[in-house]
């Protein structure tokens, strides 16, 4: 399940809708400090079901909604959609489609929505979708900023967990 596209709106510093077309083998994201690069990583992990606000560098989950700037007021909704390419290794549930779009929304009032191909689902459906593809939000396929050295300096048991992800 390669990523074809990521669409963000109202998520962290992405107040206006923005879209990343990722169909090529190697994509690079560049820009000055604080411009929003790592926020894209957070957006991907959030859409895939990440439940810990702290792991998204916030105190509460509401911190992912754009909270305003000098020129704009806060947003009322954060929405991220990630479109994946379906391939023969994809989960059975989506083999009939050529692509699958996972969407997550969070409203200021705290209510959240999950959708697969625009159909409302539960969080469990989203995490089930990614189980087994090795692409879960904890696996070795997403190395966050500053955490590359952690694998080496972690305790031996933690390294075992890391290897178990690949089992």
């Amino acid at each position, binding site marked *: 399940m390669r990523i074809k596209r990521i669409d963000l709106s109202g998520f962290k510093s992405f107040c206006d809708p923005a879209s990343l077309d990722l169909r*090529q*083998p190697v*994509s690079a994201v560049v820009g000055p400090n604080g411009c929003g690069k790592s926020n894209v*990583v957070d957006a991907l992990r959030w859409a895939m079901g990440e439940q810990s606000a702290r792991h998204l560098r916030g105190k509460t989950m509401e911190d992912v909604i754009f909270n305003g700037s000098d020129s704009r007021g806060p947003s009322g909704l954060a929405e991220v959609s990630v479109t994946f390419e379906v391939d023969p290794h994809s989960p059975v549930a989506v083999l009939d489609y050529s692509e699958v779009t996972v969407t997550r929304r969070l409203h200021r009032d705290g209510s959240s929505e999950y959708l697969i191909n625009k159909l409302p689902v539960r969080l469990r459906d989203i995490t089930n979708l990614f189980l087994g593809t090795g692409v879960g939000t904890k696996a070795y396929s997403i190395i966050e*900023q500053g955490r590359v050295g952690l694998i080496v300096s972690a305790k031996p048991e933690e390294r075992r967990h890391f290897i178990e992800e690949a089992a």
Partner: protein
Amino acid sequence: CRERFVETFDRVNEQFQQVFPRLFRGGKARLVLTEAEDVLQGGVEIVAQPPGKKLVSIDMMSGGEKALTATSLIFAMFLVRPTPFCLLDEVDAPLDDANVLRLRELVKELSTGSQFIIITHNHNTMEIADRLFGVTMEEPGISKLVSVNLSEAQRVAA
């Protein structure tokens, strides 16, 4: 479950022993299961030896050596059980230019099987991208995405 773990461990170890000398241009490294009644309760030690050096504990390695050893392990896991995509957020920050060049060669090679998304400030790393995205905040506090070419990226990211 236990067999699966041991089988995966052996395969990751095999790949790690190949990737490490590739990134370090020599030396050797391997994974060792710690003594435990049950492997699923034990841990995994990393034994590594950069080229020309004595075997050292991981803690005595330099910042760049640790990052490179960790990347070798990540790629070894990737080779055993590729995931459809891999996202690296500034893993090249502690590396010198020679190591950045070796890292990007390996990424280029692995990208035939999986998709790579790389966040970086390093001009050398940018050069392997098929497509570059610039994130700007022309309006302070508001992120915008623009498609950029290499020379624009090296200016924007700088």
